C-alpha cells in the first residue's frame, strides 16, 4: 500500500472510532459498580435495577406492543402499496410517501397532535396507545415501501406474466409467485419498520397519553434528570437488540 492509501486507512480507522466509540463507552459503563463515571469494578447492579423497575417494565411492554402492532400493519400495507406502485406508478401517492419521509419529525408530531385534538372535540377520544400506534403506522409505511420497492425492481416481471398466462388470477400470481420472491425484502422492511418505531421519541412524546409511556420517553426523562447508570444499561440493551435486527435486515436486503 502506498503512503496515500495508508493515510486514508488511518483516517478511516479514526472515523470508525468516532462512529462507534461513544456507544461502546456508554455500554461499558453500564457494567460499572459506581454510579459516577469512575471505573470501580464490574457489576450487573444496574441491569438488575433496570429489570426490577415497575415503570421501566411498563415502558418496555408499551414500546414492544406499539412496535409489533405498527410493524405488522405497516409491513402489510407498505408491501401491498409497493406492489401496486411497481405495477403502475401513482405520482400522488408516491409523492405523499416521499414527503412524509422528509417532513421534520416535530412537524409530523404536532400535526398528528392537532388532528387527534380535533377528533377528540367530536368523539371524546383521548390520547393513548392507539394514537401512538396509528402515528407509528403512518411514519413507517414509507420505509417499508422503499425497501420492498428496491426488491421488486430486481425481480423478473416475466415470471408473474408466465403465471398469468398459465391461468392464475392476479391475486394468485401475487400470492404464489411475487410474494415468495420478494419475501426477504419484506422481512428486511419489517425489521427496519420495527427499529424506527421502537426508537421514535419526538412524534411519540407528542401523541402519547398518560398510560402509553414508551421506553424512549422514559430514557429521555431520565437523561434529563442527570447521570444514571440505569440509562446506560437500558441503552446497551437497546443498542444490542436493534443492532442485531439491523444486521439481519441488511443481510436480507442485499442478498
Amino acid at each position, binding site marked *: 500500500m502506498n503512503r496515500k*492509501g495508508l493515510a486514508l*486507512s488511518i*483516517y*478511516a480507522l479514526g*472515523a470508525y472510532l*468516532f*462512529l462507534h466509540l*461513544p*456507544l461502546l463507552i*456508554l455500554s461499558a459503563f453500564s457494567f460499572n459498580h459506581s454510579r*459516577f*463515571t*469512575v471505573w470501580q469494578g464490574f457489576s450487573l447492579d444496574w441491569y438488575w435495577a433496570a429489570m426490577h423497575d415497575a415503570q421501566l417494565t411498563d415502558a418496555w411492554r408499551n414500546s414492544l406492543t406499539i412496535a409489533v402492532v405498527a410493524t405488522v400493519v405497516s409491513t*402489510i*400495507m*407498505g408491501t*401491498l*402499496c409497493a*406492489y*401496486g406502485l411497481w*405495477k403502475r406508478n*401513482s405520482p400522488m*401517492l*408516491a409523492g*405523499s*410517501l*416521499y414527503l*412524509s419521509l*422528509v*417532513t*421534520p*419529525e*416535530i*412537524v*409530523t408530531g*404536532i*400535526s*398528528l397532535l*392537532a*388532528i387527534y385534538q380535533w377528533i377528540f372535540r367530536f368523539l371524546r377520544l383521548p390520547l393513548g396507545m392507539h394514537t401512538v400506534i*396509528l402515528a407509528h*403506522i403512518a411514519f413507517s409505511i414509507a420505509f417499508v*415501501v422503499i425497501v420492498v420497492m428496491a426488491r421488486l425492481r430486481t425481480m423478473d416481471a416475466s415470471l408473474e406474466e408466465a403465471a398469468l398466462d398459465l391461468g392464475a388470477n392476479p391475486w394468485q400470481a*401475487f400470492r404464489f409467485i411475487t410474494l415468495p420472491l420478494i419475501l426477504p425484502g419484506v422481512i428486511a422492511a419489517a425489521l427496519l419498520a420495527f*427499529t424506527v418505531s421502537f*426508537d421514535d421519541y*419526538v412524534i411519540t412524546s*407528542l401523541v402519547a397519553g398518560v398510560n402509553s409511556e414508551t421506553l*424512549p420517553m422514559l430514557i*429521555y426523562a431520565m*437523561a*434529563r434528570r442527570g*447521570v444514571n447508570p440505569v*440509562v446506560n444499561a437500558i441503552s446497551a440493551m*437497546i*443498542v444490542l437488540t*436493534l443492532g442485531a435486527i*439491523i*444486521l439481519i435486515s*441488511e443481510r436480507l436486503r442485499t442478498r
Partner: protein
Amino acid sequence: MNRLRAWFLAPSWAVMLALFLAPLAIILAYSFETRGAYGGLSLPWTAESYARLADPIYLGILWRSFWIAGLSTVLCLVLGFPLALFISRSGKRKHLYLSLVILPFWTSFLVRTYAWMFLLRDTGLINTLLQSLGLIHEPLPLLYNDGAVVLGLVYSYLPFMVLPLYATLERLDRTLLEAAADLGARPWATLTHVMVPLCAPGIRAGAILVFIPCLGAYLTPDLLGGGKSVMIGNLIQNQFTTARDWPFGAAISLALMAIVMVLLFAFARRDQEGLL
C-alpha cells in the same frame, strides 16, 4: 388487474390521507386562525402569525438554525468524503465497511444522543478523565452549547453523507484520475478539478439528505444544546406546549415545510428519482 391494484393501494392511501395529509391541512388552517384567550383557537382568519415570523427574535432563530445545519452539513462532507473514498477502494470488504457506517445510524437516535451527554457533561467521561490526569481543575463546559449541537448532528447524520458519496465514488472511472495524474495534475488539483466535479450528484444528494434533517432537528438541540441553543424545531415544540400559541406554531411548521420543499426541488430534483 386494475381493480386489484386499487385494493393494494387503498390502505396506504387511507393512512396517508388520514394521518399525514389531513393533519397537515389542519395545521394549515390553524396557522390562519387567532390564538384564543385560554390558548385555544378562534376566528377571524388572519395572516398575523406569518407576519410575526418577521420579528427579529424569530428571524434570529431561523438564521441560527440555518447556520448550525449548514455548518453540520459542511463538516459531514469534509469528514465523510475521505471515508467514502476509503470504502469505495477497499475491494471485497466494501460491504462490511459500509455496514459499519450504517449500523450506528439505525441503532436508536436517542441513545446515540444520550451517549454524547454521557461523554460531554461536567461529570462526564471526558471531564472526569482530564481532571484525573490533572490537565484541568474545573470541568470544561463541553455540553449545552452550539458546538455540542453541531457535534451531535454530525455524529447522527454522517452516514447520510457517506452513502450517496460512496455510490458515486463507486461508479467513478478511476482511469480519469490516472489520466489527470499522467497529464501532470497534482493530487490536490486532481481532487478539486476531476474528482469533486464528477462526484457532484453524490455531494448534492448527501448535502440535501444531511441539511434537511439538521434544519428541522429537535432532539439534538434539546438535549445537547440545553435551553440555550434554540432551533426551529424547539421553537415549534414550545409554541404547542409551553407557550400554547398554536396558530404561531402552525405557521412556523409550514414555513419550515416550505423551506424543505424549496430545497428539495432546487437541489435534489435530478437525484430524488429512484428513491421511490
